[in-house]
Every structure is written in structure tokens, then in C-alpha cells.
């Protein structure tokens, strides 16, 4: 079927108002996460372009279908960036297409720097969206501090197009830093590595990345810590961190722009698992719980980001999701299936009263159940 491709917000609203058939919403289509949706494909590609960019106010407003690359290019020209560091999912998922800024926020996608500066949702200042009745709704604005009414902006972030179709997003951006320093130590076990990362994040030295890969670029485990800033400041903090971390292992410093960029891009995009054929899970946990949790799952390989709080897990194809859910139920946190066997549902099952609130919201925002129906469904329904 040919994609529905509205060119304006009004056209999009009319499509939703007039249809009785479910819609499958696509930005760049690079992130086919969630339960597959049956419905007429609708692309946001026609809703594209940067509407406003004020570098001196750190704000940018763009239509939701704008390619992330276009936003990043505009920002780079002013020495700024998307500080939450959204990943490029194409290598991991083997998808093609052009990731869109709307898709990034619909999936609340944030990379290694999330640990220091916040998630995508923390940078989203305002939204316009079309709800499931075809109404255009506005919330938030384009200023950095705003407590006027309820924060539907946060609600829309991470709702995967099940509450509304984003048409415009206003975001906060940040200046690029001059120098990146990457401290690395090879051969640490998971427990020691996570302890070292926690120590670094608990220091005053403003760590902006803290990751541990069981299989680093040279095969051995590698623990990496990122600091960013001016040359003098990075040198100073790197030296201080080396002292603080000496008890865990010897960390060497790299400040080469190309290699530090490659290091952190590999973590952001989960490169260790590119081209593997296992199932991929993404777990969010309390950092110190992470190594024990991974050890309890048979055949799991892990890439830890966010100081251990984010675990990318590669498990043998066909591993029952239930094992992972049982393990995480003991520690708290949540697990999402990113790629692979969908037996146990994709998203973490919610406690019944919370699931009821979520369902209640969905009924209000999308009473006819047209928007990506079933995509975030609880495991029970998904199985039906």
C-alpha cells in the first residue's frame, strides 16, 4: 500500500478525522520497535523543516518529520548540538531510512550523555500533535521554564505515537564542548567496572559518559569514562579522575577527536551487537544492581551504559523473555525487547492501577483506537 503522506498539519488532522481504519505512524521507519501494528501506513515525511532556530536562546522549533541529520547540521553550524545524543538505530536493527526528530521524541531516545544532562524528554519544550479524534493540540511552548498547566509534553515523549501524531516539536539545544577526553581501562570484571563508574559519577568532575563493554574493540572488556570541556579543564579532570579511580584499575586518557568520537558513537549505537543474530533487550535498572542481574541471565552478553543503569543485552535467539522479566522483577527497573522473539511482550508489564491509568489516557487521546493500536499493549493483550 502507498503511504498516506500529509503535507500539512491540517491535512493530517483531516486524514485522522475521516478515517475509521487504524494508522501505522512512521517517521523514518528506522525504529520498528513494539508490537507490529496493522494499519494504513502514514508517513510524517511531508511535515518537514526547521521553523525557528535561536542559538542565543538555545531553542529550535522543527516540524516532526524533519530528518535528525538536518537538525544536527543546522546546530553544528552554530557550534551547538542535541545534547541528549540520540542514537542511530540503523546498524543495530538493520533498518534503512532517515531518522526523524519526531521519531526521536516519540521514542524518547537518549544516548550516553543522558546520565549527565537528561533524556530526550528533558529537552522537549513544546509540542503540537494531532490526537486520535483529529484535533490539533498544543502543549508547552518554546521557553525553557514553563509550568503553565499540565505537562503533556513529557507524556507525548516516549508514547510511540499511541496518544497523538507529533507535528511540531520545540527543543532545547546546548553548545558543543571543545574537547572530549575518554578514560579507558581494560580487563575489569563487571562488578569492579560498575563500581568504578559509580565512583566517577559520584565525583565533582562532571562525567558525561560512563560505560562498560564486556567485549571492547580489542576483544577484552573495556570500561570508559567521558569528560568534556575546554582543553585545560579536561586535562585537569582526567588527572583527578585517574587518581580517584586508581583503586579500581589504571585508566589511560585519550583526547584524540576522531578516536574519542568513535568510542562514544560505538556505545551510543550499540556497535558490539551489530551483525549478531541474538535477541536484543534494553534494560533500565539501578546501576549497582546491573552486574548481578546480567549474571543471572543465561548466555547474556552485556554493554552497560549510564554508569550501569542502562544495559544492552544480547541473548541467544529465542530466549524466553520471561527469564529477563523475572530477573528484573527482583531488582526493580524495566526491560524492553528491541529486536527478536516477541513471546513475552515488548514493554515491561505495568502494575494494574498504573496500566489502568495508561489505558484511561489512551481512551481519552485516541477514543477510536486509531493510532498505532496495540504497539504498547501489555503482554497479555499482545499475545491475543
Amino acid at each position, binding site marked *: 500500500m502507498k503511504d498516506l503522506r500529509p503535507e500539512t498539519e491540517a491535512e493530517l488532522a483531516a486524514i485522522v478525522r475521516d478515517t475509521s481504519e487504524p494508522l501505522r505512524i512512521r517517521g523514518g521507519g528506522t525504529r520498528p520497535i513494539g508490537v507490529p501494528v496493522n494499519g494504513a501506513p502514514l508517513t510524517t515525511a511531508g511535515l518537514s523543516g526547521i521553523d525557528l532556530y535561536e542559538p542565543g536562546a*538555545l531553542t529550535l522549533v522543527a516540524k516532526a518529520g524533519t530528518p535528525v541529520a538536518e537538525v544536527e547540521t543546522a546546530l553544528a553550524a552554530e557550534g551547538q548540538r542535541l545534547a541528549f545524543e540520540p542514537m542511530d538505530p540503523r546498524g543495530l536493527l538493520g533498518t534503512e531510512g532517515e531518522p526523524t526528530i519526531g521519531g526521536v521524541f516519540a521514542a524518547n531516545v537518549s544516548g550516553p550523555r543522558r546520565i549527565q544532562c537528561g533524556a530526550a524528554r528533558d529537552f522537549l519544550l513544546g509540542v503540537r500533535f494531532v490526537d486520535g479524534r483529529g484535533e490539533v493540540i498544543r502543549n508547552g511552548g518554546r521557553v525553557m521554564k514553563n509550568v503553565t498547566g*499540565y505537562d503533556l509534553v513529557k507524556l507525548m515523549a516516549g508514547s510511540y505515537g499511541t496518544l497523538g501524531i507529533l507535528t511540531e516539536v520545540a527543543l532545547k539545544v546546548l553548545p558543543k564542548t571543545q574537547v572530549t577526553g575518554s578514560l579507558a581501562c581494560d580487563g575489569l570484571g563487571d562488578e569492579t567496572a560498575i563500581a568504578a563508574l559509580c565512583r566517577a559519577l559520584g565525583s565533582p568532575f562532571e562525567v558525561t559518559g560512563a560505560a562498560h563493554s564486556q567485549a571492547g574493540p580489542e576483544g577484552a572488556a573495556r570500561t570508559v569514562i567521558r569528560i568534556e570541556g575546554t582543553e585545560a579543564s579536561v586535562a585537569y579532570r582526567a588527572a583527578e579522575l585517574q587518581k580517584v579511580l586508581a583503586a579500581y584499575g589504571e585508566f589511560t586518557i585519550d583526547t584524540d577527536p576522531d578516536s574519542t568520537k568513535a568510542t562514544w558513537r560505538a556505545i551510543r549505537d550499540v556497535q558490539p551487537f551489530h551483525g549478531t543474530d541474538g535477541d536484543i533487550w534494553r534494560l*533500565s535498572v539501578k546501576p549497582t544492581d546491573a552486574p548481578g542481574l546480567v549474571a543471572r541471565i543465561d548466555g547474556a552478553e552485556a554493554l552497560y551504559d549510564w554508569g550501569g543503569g542502562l544495559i544492552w543485552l544480547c541473548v541467544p535467539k529465542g530466549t524466553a523473555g520471561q527469564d529477563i522479566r523475572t530477573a528484573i522483577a527482583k531488582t526493580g527497573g524495566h526491560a524492553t525487547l528491541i529486536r527478536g522473539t516477541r513471546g513475552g511482550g515488548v514493554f515491561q508489564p505495568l502494575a494494574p492501577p498504573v496500566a489502568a491509568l495508561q489505558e484511561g489516557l489512551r481512551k481519552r487521546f485516541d477514543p477510536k483506537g486509531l493510532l498505532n493500536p496495540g504497539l504498547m499493549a501489555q503482554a497479555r493483550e499482545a499475545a491475543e
Partner: protein
Amino acid sequence: MEMPAPNPDILSKKAELVTRLLDILPADAVISDPAETRAYECDALTAYKCPPLAAVLPSTTQEVSDVLRICHEMGVPVVPRGSGTSLAGGALPTEDSVILGVARLNDVIETDYDNRFIRVQTGRTNLSVTGAVEEDGYFYAPDPSSQLACAIAGNIAMNSGGAHCLKYGVTTNNLLGVTMVLMDGTVIELGGAHLDAEGYDLLGLICGSEGQLGVVTEATLRILHKPEGARPVLIGFDSNEVAGACVSDIIKAGVLPVAIEFMDRPCIRATEDFAKAGYPDCEALLIVEVEGSEAEIDEQLETIMSIARTHDPVELRQSGSAEESAKIWLGRKSAFGAMGNINDYMCLDGTIPVSQLPYVLKRIGEMSKEFGLDVANVFHAGDGNMHPLILFDANKPGDLETCEAFGAKILKLCVEVGGCLTGEHGVGIEKRDLMAHQYGEKDLAMQMAVKDVFDPKWLLNPAKVFPLAASDAHRIAAE
């Protein structure tokens, strides 16, 4: 300010309600004597007062749940209350409502430095959260000026900010999880020590919902290690326009100060008379603070000062010591006190795009003449969060009304230039009727639909945030 007429039915059930509350709470936790309920008749928006039917002070989440269940069964509205420092009338009772104060819920439940969080009961004051971790070198970042008194409960309900939020964000960016009780008594957990929501971001939704979606009893908060040091520079200009341009250039240059504070001439003069901080008598003054080691601070301040020099400042004063820093901050920190010393004042907190600063300041000056009331401006310039302080005389008939009309006009201006009505104090009753200037009917209806889901009977803090005319249908349908 109009409030809905109290429901006579509820007023007549007071005795039954009090008996039922006494069944589940200790006697000293139920306040129903009119002489004592007066203590809860207002928050920091003191122009509006109304004693509640009763006030309760539960000590556990279970007690909160029991209170809500009873009120839910009896159809009695509940107004949650932290410390009552809201400037927007968020905690103002109605005659037929029960005040649910969380002041006795003030324990620290867990501190975890490895994972950098603290879990507290929400009646705990903002400053005492930092107090609990300070000796070990940590702090809780959001720092509203009211931090000595205000509670985490109110901070979450209002999504409060502080002087340092340019770097560290506001409450919502530092909140990891909550225990919350829904109006029917159901206890739910959102978030926890891990990051990001499993499902919809309900934590983000309830933060800033002004006590209308549930009563928050516990919170997990992100804590950070204190920076090695911090120092400000004071920069004076002879025009607001130039000061505004300087702010924008500092931000563009890629230094990220923790705070950029702005004061205009009326504010500088008033605080100088009051606090004698030695500020220059100029049109506009910036205080820019940076953090790090001594050398890092010097490097950042040098960058900021070289930017400032390109704008011909009339004063450029770098702090070289803790005493000098305190002196630079003294006037800023006394600004509210200084204004209070002159007269009654109303403090607004509309936010504007930083590029609109000079225009908005000019317009506020013109309006000040038009309304015949003085206004001083002191605000967080880095994020455009204005704080115009309008001076009036509460004892002079009509002055409050003139002041409110002036305030409303300033806030409408903030919206017109692309900003919003409130950046940190919340809507409450104060800005309730201005909401239609910021949002269309459908935008407001969507927000009210959220309340329908969390609180179908509209019993939690019902007459706030939304214009009464807009919320009427929901409140009446729920009765």
C-alpha cells in the same frame, strides 16, 4: 477572584466526616475547630483566604490513603498542602474542602551515594534534603528561594525551579520516582532508582500537576556531588538592550554558567538602599556564576568577561574570594526583602524567549506609567524567567485590583512574544483565568481529560489551574 460556592450538602456532613477521620487518625492529626482551621486559610498568596472544613495531618502513606478513601466516598474535595509557600494560591482551601497536609511525612527513607539518589517522604523541606547529604559532599540541585520552608511535595506539584536551574534543570529533571495516592485511595508507584519510564511518562505528567492528580507521599530524587567551587562576576550596563545581548552572547559562546541573574535599575536602587551591597547605579546588572576548580572558574570567568567587554560595561567585578562572592549575591538575595520593605508587592513569573528581553522590559516600563504602579525586575535571564515585582498598597482601596490588572497585562505580553504565563510558581488560582490566553479551548480540554482519568469525580484541588467556566462541565458532571 471567584471560587465555586461551597456545597451545602458537604458542609452539613462535617460532623460525620470528622468522626470518620478520627477513626483512622490520631486525635491530634484531625483539626476541625474553626479557631484552628484558620491556620490553613491561605498560602503565600495572602490576598485570598478561606478556612477549610477540616485539616488532617497524616503520618504514613496508609493514613493518606485512608483519608482519601473516606473523602472520596463522601464526595468531599481535598486540597493537598506541603508548606503553604505557593505564590499562586495553589494550596488555598474552599469552605467545603479538607486540607491534607503532609508536614508530618518528613523522614529520609534511604540515601544511596553509589546510585546517587535519596528517597524521602514529601513533607520534608527542600533545604533539609540537601541537609541530609551535605556532609558527605552531595546536594539536591533544585533550589527555590523558598527552600528553607517549602516542601518536596509542593516542589513536585509545582515543578519548582531555582537560581541554578540553568545548569541543573528544575524539579521534573531531578525527580526519579514517587509513591502517590489516587483520590480513591489507591497507592501507586511511578519510576524508582532507575531512569526513564516503563510505559507512558506518568512521572513527568504528575510533576507540575498542582495537586490535582494525586497526593505524593514519597519521592526518589537525584543527588549530585557538589562542585569544587563556584564564583560569580558582576557586570553593569547602561541599557537593558545591551545586557540582553550580552546574555545571549555568553550562551552562544558555549560557556554554561550555573546562573545568569538580571536586575533592572528600580530593583538595583531598592536593594542598594536596603542591603548596601555596593552595586553600581546603572540601568541593568548581571550576576553570572560558574563552577569548577579554581583554575576552571578563572578560565570561564575570563571568557565571560571578554564577552562582556565587547559590550562596554559600566562595571565589571570579578569575585576573587568567598567574601566577594557573598557581597555580589547579597543584593540579589535581598531583592524580595527590599521590595517588601518599600511596600506590598506582587511577584509574577512569566517566561519569555531571551531575545525578547529588551522589548518586554521596555513595555513593562511603559505599562508602569499607565497603571501608576512602580515595578522592579529581577530574574533568571539565562532561561528568560522574568520576575516583575509590582508594588502596591494593600490598604489603599482599589490598589490590589489595579495591580492585578497590570500583572495580567504583563503576563499576556509574555505569551504574545512567544513565552508563557508561569515559569515556576504555577497557575493555582492566580493565573487560572488567564489560561485561555495561552491555550485554546481544545488544548485545555485535553489537559482536563487527564484529570478525568486520574480523578473522575474532580475532588482533588478542583477549582484551580483551569478557568472555572472551562472546568464547570467536568466538575458538575462529576458531582
